[in-house]
């Protein structure tokens, strides 16, 4: 059922209607009669955010490469369009076929951020699919699934999702679809399929696990049923360089957040920053060769027509052959009027050679993330960056004519004192002083240092998973310290946010299954788009917690002991808990751990890959 006739009368009544009608170049149309299974890839946020997400483009390409499968895109409608959809009884539809999502075989959500969870419930409801998994009956379709980084602790969504994909999806999604087609054609029910799918490595079916609790509210045990594995192991792509990257994107008509071609240059991170969840979830560190990267980028530009190319990774400057890669990319981008942008650069290996290459790239200012203001604090979080290195990098940037630098920091880190907070501004001031001491500084231009200070959220699968988050009062105090510290510093701008969203993020990140009731109740009370400050209603969330008899502090502000059973302990990302404990103990002593290329810290991932991540027999470069 194509909904075009129903959609069209609503479009001129809403903001940016191009978001709701599809038809963009690169969007893949197929003949429905030739299709064995349809996958609605749902991004639980607005079009302009979701369309910027590389993971969606990757899986869209992977699934659509198979002629018998059709993957389409779905985004959360903005509130103006949602109101009209509900008024006109227009169900949630996919952008390629304009057909209702409820008629698809799979409805798959990508979980990039905890504060999108209520949008998932809202999208299911708009689709006319029961929000609770147990209400979906025995008919096999649609299967509601979810993957992405937040799936590492799937428990707060356990009541809503039929199956989670743990780890990298490039192979896993297709294996699950293949099994689905086989079983559906043989007449299998939903529960039969879910039981069978749970045997595929990387599939987690929460309804096949019983969770019991201790009197103090912590998890006692997670017990599998019906042959489901006791521990669900994540999937890893073995040969990353050969793993096909999408050589075409859907190119949107309307402007989106990241409107450019993107090439993934490496996956995983070798740094081991103790606060960074992605740095542990995406191990091991794997690179694409400069040849693969250049060939792919060229193809992507040719197929999308984009005028800008960006490199994507957790730390691009850690690529072992970055200068070679940059030379290759610059050769064709300069010839073809393509702008090249490089996010995720580090300050400790930012060479003049790289800067010279970057100067040929039009840039709107440099951004670095020292993360903490004092060396002690940076050692605690294992951000192996020294002040000298930051200064050197800023000097290179200033020499190249830059006059503004943006610095990212966190507050609320373990062991943090008021001194560390004041250290943020002191550090920024030393960058300012250095600028004015330079002889070759850009003449007549004042320097501007912008410091953005986020509230730290302890996350599962990091050495800080044991740590309580700072309370609202502690954060308020530290923000006051910051405010006083920055007063009178004319060349420094500091910005921070109210901590409520970070508190909710911590709760949802480290929560258990009982939070399903809270999320459901918050959504029923009207919470959606929690990540957007204009929609965020912390008061309604607190009501939802109260109704469920739960409190925020239990999840966010409670120190967790090393022997506590965590809600996510039955999910395995190959990072040993013993390693996390070791790292946490070193953090308390402000001791750093070398990055993986220098020496192996023994996180546990080699047990699975079967070989060291780097060749330690040769002399390593830093």
């Amino acid at each position, binding site marked *: 059922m194509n909904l*075009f006739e129903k959609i*069209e*009368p609503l*479009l*001129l009544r809403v903001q940016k*209607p*191009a978001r*709701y*009608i*599809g*038809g*963009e*170049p690169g969007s893949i149309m197929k003949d429905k009669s030739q299709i064995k299974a349809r996958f609605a890839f749902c991004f639980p946020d607005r079009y302009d955010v979701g369309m910027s997400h590389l993971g969606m483009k990757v899986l869209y390409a992977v699934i659509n490469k198979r002629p018998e499968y059709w993957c389409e895109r779905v985004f959360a409608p903005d509130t103006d369009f949602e109101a009209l959809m509900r008024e006109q009884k227009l169900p949630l539809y996919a952008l390629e076929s304009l057909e209702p999502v409820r008629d698809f075989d799979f409805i798959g959500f990508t979980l990039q951020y905890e504060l999108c969870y209520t949008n998932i419930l809202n999208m299911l409801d708009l689709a006319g699919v029961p929000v609770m998994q147990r209400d979906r009956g025995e008919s096999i379709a649609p299967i509601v699934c979810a993957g992405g980084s937040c799936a590492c602790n799937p428990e707060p969504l356990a009541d809503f999702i039929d199956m989670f994909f743990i780890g990298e999806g490039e192979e896993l999604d297709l294996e699950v679809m293949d099994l689905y087609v086989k079983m559906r054609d043989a007449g299998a029910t939903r529960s039969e399929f879910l039981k069978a799918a749970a045997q595929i490595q990387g599939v987690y079916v929460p309804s096949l696990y019983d969770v019991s609790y201790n009197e103090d509210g912590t998890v006692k045990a997670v017990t599998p049923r019906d042959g489901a594995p006791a521990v669900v192991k994540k999937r890893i792509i073995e040969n990353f360089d050969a793993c096909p990257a999408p050589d075409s994107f859907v*190119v949107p*008509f*309307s*402007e989106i957040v990241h409107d450019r071609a993107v090439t993934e240059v490496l996956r995983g991170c070798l740094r081991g920053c103790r606060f960074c969840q992605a740095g542990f979830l995406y191990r091991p560190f794997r690179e694409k060769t400069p040849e693969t990267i250049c060939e792919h980028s060229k193809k992507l*530009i*040719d*197929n*999308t*027509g*984009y*005028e800008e190319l960006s490199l994507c990774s957790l730390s691009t400057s850690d690529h072992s052959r970055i200068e070679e890669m940059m030379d290759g990319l610059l050769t064709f981008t300069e010839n*073809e*009027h393509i702008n090249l942008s490089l996010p995720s650069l580090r300050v400790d290996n930012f060479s003049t050679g790289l800067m010279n290459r970057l100067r040929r790239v039009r840039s709107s200012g440099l951004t670095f993330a020292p993360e903490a203001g004092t060396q002690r604090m940076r050692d605690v979080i294992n951000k192996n960056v020294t002040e000298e290195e930051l200064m050197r990098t800023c000097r290179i940037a200033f020499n190249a004519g830059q006059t503004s630098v943006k610095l990212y920091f966190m507050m609320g880190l373990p062991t943090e004192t008021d001194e560390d907070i004041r250290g943020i501004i002191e550090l920024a001031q030393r960058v300012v002083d250095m600028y004015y001491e330079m002889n070759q500084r850009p003449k007549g231009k004042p320097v501007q240092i912008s410091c953005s200070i986020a509230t730290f959220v302890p996350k599962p699968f990091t050495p800080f998973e044991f740590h309580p988050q700072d309370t609202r009062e502690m954060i308020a105090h530290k923000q006051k310290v910051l405010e006083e510290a920055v007063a009178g510093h004319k060349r420094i701008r500091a910005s921070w946010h109210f901590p409520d969203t970070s508190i909710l993020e911590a709760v949802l990140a480290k929560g258990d299954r009982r939070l399903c009731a809270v999320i459901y109740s918050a959504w029923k009370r009207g919470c959606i788009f929690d990540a957007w400050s204009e929609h965020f209603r912390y008061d309604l969330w607190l009501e939802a917690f109260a109704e469920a008899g739960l409190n925020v502090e239990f999840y966010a502000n409670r120190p967790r002991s090393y022997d506590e059973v965590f809600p996510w302990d039955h999910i395995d990302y190959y990072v040993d808990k013993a390693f996390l404990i070791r790292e946490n103990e070193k953090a308390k002593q402000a001791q750093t751990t070398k990055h993986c290329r220098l020496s192996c810290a023994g996180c546990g991932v080699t047990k699975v890959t079967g070989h060291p991540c780097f060749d330690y027999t040769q002399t390593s470069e830093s």
Partner: protein
Amino acid sequence: MVPVRATFEKRRRAKYISHLDLMRCMQRAFRRAGVPIWFTEGFNPHAYLMFPLALSLGYESGCECMDFRIDGDMPMEEAMERLNRVLPPDLQLKSVAAPVRKHTDIAFADYAVVLDCADGTPAEALRRAWDAFIAQPQILVEKKTKRGTAEVDVKEKAQIMETETLESGIRLQLRMPAGTSVNVNPGLLTDAFAVWLPAHEPDVRMGMMHAERLAILCEDGTPFV
């Protein structure tokens, strides 16, 4: 360097591409198509593309116009073929030719506007209401301009070429002033009707408006392209 004036159509899903987005969409299409478009010179070179007359969001058209220059020896017919292969099916080039008229020659545009009946309103009733509305000596509307708003007598501006009663609606063919200096959208007239209707004919209900640009014309009534 070969200057080219192309006409293209904008239908169905492509109707909702805004004018600004259309520019970006076409620039990217040139790159995908491998058509060597001429880049402006200077510090920030960009593909040179010119749309002499913007089309309102949601309007269909079979006669949109775009100027560009081919920087090389590709025949313009091949450029059109290549572009059509990489453009969405609802956004396709119809013709290419060397530009003849100047942009400033544009004086009028013709539109077909269909007003649907809603809530069981008979087409005859909507037609009678329209006839009464248009019989007014003046139809004053607020028009947004670069310097704020101005009051315009939209009746004086619009030439109504045809009025037709359809099965469930009415169809108007309008000639409106168009061009770089004056530009009057037929939506001004139909919006005024939508405001007038409940106050004067409360039982007559209007549904969706469908608008299509039929032609871009010069002062003497000949087509711009």
